[in-house]
């Protein structure tokens, strides 16, 4: 259909406009105030660096995205699965929820030495870290969504002889879907950042690795360039999940 498409292309245009506005302000601020690179490099400087370093940035971006997306998938599934478990077995709630909260109350980076120790310095440790971070967000949102179900609707289904599973599949899950997808949407951005942060603590490749080295080389233009790439990837990831969301939650 064309109206939604039009709407989204207009949204896209406005988004670009908003971005352009900010970038211009940034450019003028950096140039006008003659800010040194180590405070805020001008946009044009960053873009130039991105262009000159495109191939290594792209390959690092790909590496990071693979970590983030894999961790996102694992964490998303784990989050949904544990929320389903908790909602199907109410007795488990009192145990699972505090443990999940406890794990999540500590910055993922705090686990990084342990995770790096357990899973090594390669991709798997980043994937684990992303999965931890994503699973909690998705878990919380899913639980809330599953709880949101209208009691009377569930009762009606039960009067049709629906099993717990049937009520879950036909009622609770669709009811929870908007919140589950919101959780996934928030998690896209976090998954990239967690991958990057973990890479900064030890990695072979990836944007975080580039950032880490650039910080120590005091090369802030390179840092900003890597972050710009991370932002673009995150935006794309976010848009992708938003698209899935619009398709899946068509009735609101």
């Amino acid at each position, binding site marked *: 259909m064309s109206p939604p498409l039009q709407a989204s292309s207009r949204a896209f245009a406005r988004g670009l406009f908003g971005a352009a506005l900010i970038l211009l302000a940034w450019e003028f601020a950096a140039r006008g105030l003659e800010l*040194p*690179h*180590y*405070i805020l490099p001008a946009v044009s400087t960053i873009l130039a660096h991105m262009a000159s370093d495109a191939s290594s940035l792209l390959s690092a971006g790909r590496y990071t995205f693979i970590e983030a997306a894999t961790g996102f998938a694992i964490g998303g599934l784990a989050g949904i699965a544990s929320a389903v478990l908790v909602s199907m077995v109410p007795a488990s709630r009192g145990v699972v929820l505090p443990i999940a909260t406890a794990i999540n109350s500590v910055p993922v980076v705090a686990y*990084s*030495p342990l995770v*790096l*120790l357990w899973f*090594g*310095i390669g991709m798997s440790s980043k994937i684990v870290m992303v999965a931890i971070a994503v699973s909690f967000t998705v878990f919380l949102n899913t639980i809330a969504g599953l709880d949101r179900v209208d009691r009377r609707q569930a009762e009606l289904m039960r009067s049709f002889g629906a099993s717990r599973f049937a009520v879950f599949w036909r009622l609770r899950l669709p009811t929870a879907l908007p919140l589950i997808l919101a959780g996934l949407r928030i998690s896209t951005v976090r998954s990239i950042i967690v991958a990057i942060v973990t890479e*900064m*603590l*030890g*990695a*072979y490749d990836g944007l975080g*690795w580039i950032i880490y*080295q650039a*910080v*120590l*080389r*005091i*090369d*802030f233009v390179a840092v900003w360039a890597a972050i710009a790439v991370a932002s673009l990837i995150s935006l794309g990831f976010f848009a992708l999940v938003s698209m899935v969301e619009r398709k899946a939650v068509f009735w609101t």
Partner: protein
Amino acid sequence: GGLASAQEPTPASLRLKWLPQAQFAGFYTALEKGYYEEEGIALTINPGGPNILTENLVATGADTFGLSGGTDSVFAARDRGLPIVCIGVAHQVTPFVFVTAGDGPVETVQDFAGKTVTTWFTGANHVLSAMLAHEGVDLGTVDMQPQQVSMTPFVDGEVDVATATRYNELYTVNTRLGAENVRLFVPEDFGVSFPRDTLIVSERTLADDPELVAGFLRASIRGWQDAFADPEGAIDTIMAVAPTLDRAHQEFMLEEVRELMTAGQAGEDGLFAIDPAAIGSAHDLLVEYGVLSAPVDLDAAFDASALEAIPLEDRAL
């Protein structure tokens, strides 16, 4: 005290390169004993950490003084146009070593070939490369990997050679493997030296207030002298600042730091001596490896004038 203590003390801050530990015992001792106050300086010691860059904070004026990464980071900062100057070098020799299992297959640097070697890709890797080059080892034959925070992979034998600061990782390795079971490769033995832990100020501070800089140096040196004279007292001071630290480790650290600070040129020129030769060789190494885009003006980057304003006998060991 050079400045009249009647005057209003000048506020200033020292940004460390890391969290409070015995590596910085002298500064904390000086602070506790009021040596900075005597110089008319109201000093705050700000800890560092893995994610903040001392050079940056000093360059922007957020902090007055910095104990920064080392000669390498001073080069890099100057290379990027950060207006900082090194006014003293703490560790006169390379503070890290390469470790391998005492009974392991690696007995010489030549043996690194075909082995897994982990190191920090923040300077230490160039030292390693230079060592290998010095010993005629083809870089391509060494599996050089980034080293993570933990030494456990090395202790577990997953890694053949690892990098260790003499005051931190080496302690971990020694306690877990036994010092007698660890073989060390010291960069200086292979023609490479990398003095680290540099004291820095901004160009402007040095130009505008040389008295402040000299006063700071004077007090700091007194602090360090006291710390070396009374290690137990210095450790007490550190433990009060960071009570969760392991005291035995801190005692080890202070001893190692003492060796690093009193090695080389410090024997003649006292604490924080700036050894142009060592700095020059480190600089040339980084230029050679392309880390520095262009040679750095070392005379502008390293300024011993403040140090030299203090009588040598006050700086001597």
